[in-house]
């Protein structure tokens, strides 16, 4: 075989291998593996809540500190707006978080973004998020730009692809146990409604799942073992704002402006602990970087990081999750600042917005 033939064979066989990989990738999309389809069900339940609300609405979006950190019922009663908490996991890509809001938000709504601090600096897809989204939001991948698609694939575990292909063959052959089978969306909604009405009799399948959210989308606390780790809340580093976040937030803000939707940034609740020192030059500089970035988009922050400091006893099961009582206090702290901001930026009476 001559060198030119060799190079032709090299190209052809590479094309063949690539085609096989692409086929396996497509085959695995949407395939669950226990127990992570619970995130899918949380999303279905939250989408149901979002679709059900009527009138001017406040949309909460961020990481799990937002899922655990708000008393949306209280927020709704004190602002007069409907409230939906769409947040659930810090690793979710920023464009995913913003896309979730874009699905439901309408003119005159308000968006509050207590983004986890790490989300400002993240210039990659987490392996966890890439794996998860491949299971329950394959459309997210197809909607990405080519550059982002390549980036996403970089972080998708090849073992996850194999697992997904096994799951697909399991479905085809029928050897697919109940635990692995995701619930139909209708069943998820029916179970969630029954749970909110106190009628649900079945098992709660996992700790974080669609049966641990209330009718606003907040996390519903149980008697889970407390775990209160120390954390610097990603304020003590020197990382710059990522281009990825910059691009996504800019696009989102442009979309909200063209749809007459107000956006407020907010700080996450952070526990006073030995790893966090808001007076440290790094923390001061990081906060300043975040503020400069949001200022460049004409976005206002609701309060200051110091306003949302909590005690370590207010944490629930991680250094980012508040107890129900602390979530209520966190919301109470935010409400006057929010009401003032709403009044400063437009009509404060939601009913007149209609």
């Amino acid at each position: 075989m001559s060198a030119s033939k060799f190079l032709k064979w090299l190209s052809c066989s590479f094309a063949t291998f690539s085609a096989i990989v692409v086929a396996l990738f497509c085959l695995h999309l949407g395939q669950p593996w226990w127990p992570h389809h619970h995130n899918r069900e949380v999303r279905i339940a939250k989408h149901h809540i979002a679709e059900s609300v009527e009138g001017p609405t406040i949309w909460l979006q961020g990481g799990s500190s937002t899922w655990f950190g708000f008393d949306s019922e209280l927020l709704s009663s004190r602002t007069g707006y409907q409230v939906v908490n769409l947040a659930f996991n810090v690793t979710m890509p920023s464009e995913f978080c913003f896309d979730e809001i874009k699905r439901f938000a309408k003119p005159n709504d308000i968006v509050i973004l207590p983004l986890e601090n790490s989300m400002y600096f993240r210039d990659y897809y987490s392996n966890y998020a890439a794996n998860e989204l491949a299971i329950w939001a394959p459309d997210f991948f197809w909607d990405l730009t080519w550059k982002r698609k390549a980036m996403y694939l970089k972080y998708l575990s090849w073992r996850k692809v194999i697992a997904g292909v096994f799951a697909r063959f399991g479905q085809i052959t029928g050897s697919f146990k109940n635990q692995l089978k995701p619930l139909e969306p209708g069943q998820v909604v029916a179970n969630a409604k029954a749970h909110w009405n106190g009628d649900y009799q079945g098992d709660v399948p996992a700790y974080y799942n669609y049966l641990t959210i209330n009718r606003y989308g907040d996390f519903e606390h149980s008697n889970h073992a407390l775990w209160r780790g120390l954390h610097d809340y990603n304020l003590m580093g020197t990382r710059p704002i990522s281009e990825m976040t910059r691009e996504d937030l800019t696009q989102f803000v442009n979309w909200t402006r063209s749809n007459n939707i107000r956006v407020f940034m907010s700080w996450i609740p952070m526990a006073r602990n030995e790893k966090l020192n808001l007076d440290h030059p790094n923390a001061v500089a990081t906060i300043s970087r975040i503020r400069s970035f949001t200022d460049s988009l004409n976005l206002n922050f609701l309060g200051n990081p110091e306003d949302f400091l909590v005690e370590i006893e207010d944490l629930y099961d991680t250094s980012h999750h508040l107890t129900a009582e602390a979530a209520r206090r966190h919301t109470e702290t935010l409400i006057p600042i929010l009401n003032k901001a709403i009044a400063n930026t437009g009509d404060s009476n939601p009913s007149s917005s209609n």
Partner: protein
Amino acid sequence: MLFFDPLFIFAFLPVVWLGFKAIGIRVPRSVSIAWLLLASWVFYAWAYPVHLFWLIGSIFANFLCSIAIQKNVDSPRAKQFLVGGIILNLLILGGFKYSGFATESLATIFGLSLQPPSFLLPLAISFFTFQQISYLVTTYRERRMIARPLEYALYVSFFPQLIAGPIVQPGEMIPQLQSKTFGKTNLNDIALGLCLFIIGLGKKILLADNLAPIADLAFGQIAQGDPISALTAWMGLLAFALQIYFDFSAYSEMALGLGLLFGIQLPENFASPYRALSIIDFWRRWHITLSSFFKNYLYIPLGGNRLGFLRRHSNILITMTIAGLWHGANLTFIIWGFAQGLLLSINHFWRFSRVQLPFEVSWLLTFVPVTLCWTFFRAENLNEALQYFSALAGTHGWASTDGLPFIEYLRSLDQTEAWNQVHYSIHYHGWYPKLITGIHIGELVFSKPFLSFIQVTTSLLVVLLFPRPFVWMRQPINGNARFTKKAAFLCSFIITAILIQSGTLQATQFIYFRF
């Protein structure tokens, strides 16, 4: 810049290669040489630009020295220039590489409070120093000017071999630079170079770097003072033996391949050393150019095997101990070198007996001692090495689950998190045959020890069963290299596998870059 760095593969290499091809079409050969020299210096200076000062300074000084030797070729001063040049090279190398070690040793032995000098060792100084010494010696022996300044600078700096060898003799490269056809690469060389580069890339990323965590875990635990079982220690040591094998083999093949892309055939530096059937054979196959250097420039000048039995064996021990020291300023490297010398001496003794051992026994008697010696090479210090040997001997038990019944042993196995998704996927299909009540085969298959065992065994099989790419590809058919469909498939498989794994790769620097 590393050969597997995307910046190197997708930017540096294509730009340099396309530039080289474009220049080779019309302009004189010296422009091609200058282009490659410039690229090599950019490559070298990428991480630490200040190191370029040492490289260029060393090239300049050595070239002046070679001119002085050539100008005084008929007078005794030529030898003085040669000796002076060699001493200067060794002083610079020693100053950078061994002054810290020497200061620390003196401080320890004499209880002095000496502060070891702190400076960054110029990358590849051991390699380019040796290469230039061989040039000075060759100039002296051949009594003529071997290369023009640009050719000499490229001979020392050519980026495929600059960082970790091979240590090229002037006669192996300079005539190629002086050939009229230099700069006009043919398709055969390009295809062969590409193939070797890809196979090397695969060895590094898919094999060596996947073995590293197994070795790191075992040696890391010992470094922290945690006892490990003999099973873990042997697995860790075998993993390191294979890691360094594939790491060095990968580098050597990538260097050969890159050389061919530019029409330069570098000498082979690695010839399946783990297939050796004696220690002597092993050292003819491992780091071939370094072994030749020490043989030609140390062992033979010391008297080699010409001065009697005792001198011969002491020369072997001296040469190998210094070769050990060349790898790094640490007692562990000195002991490693001495141990290799001892093994070589024993091997020479054995030859007198003229007893032919069965193939398998010969292989084991070579592979096992070589592998055991890697303990000194990998350990951070002597104490760690001794602790590791103690673990290998089973002083902390043979397995971490000694005394547990089999079922409890299976239950105690750590599952490998990376494989959890596949494990669960199969599990929830009920596709696992049950071994014992409550325990199925997946618990075993996806456990850390089992997967480590599979990785080590597979790698060893690759070592023993796969042909040497360079030989495999160079066997001529009708005067052409032997391009096969198998090679094409292998290369495309490697590229695909690397692309698939690219997100989770934990690529590490080549081990020999440290030297």
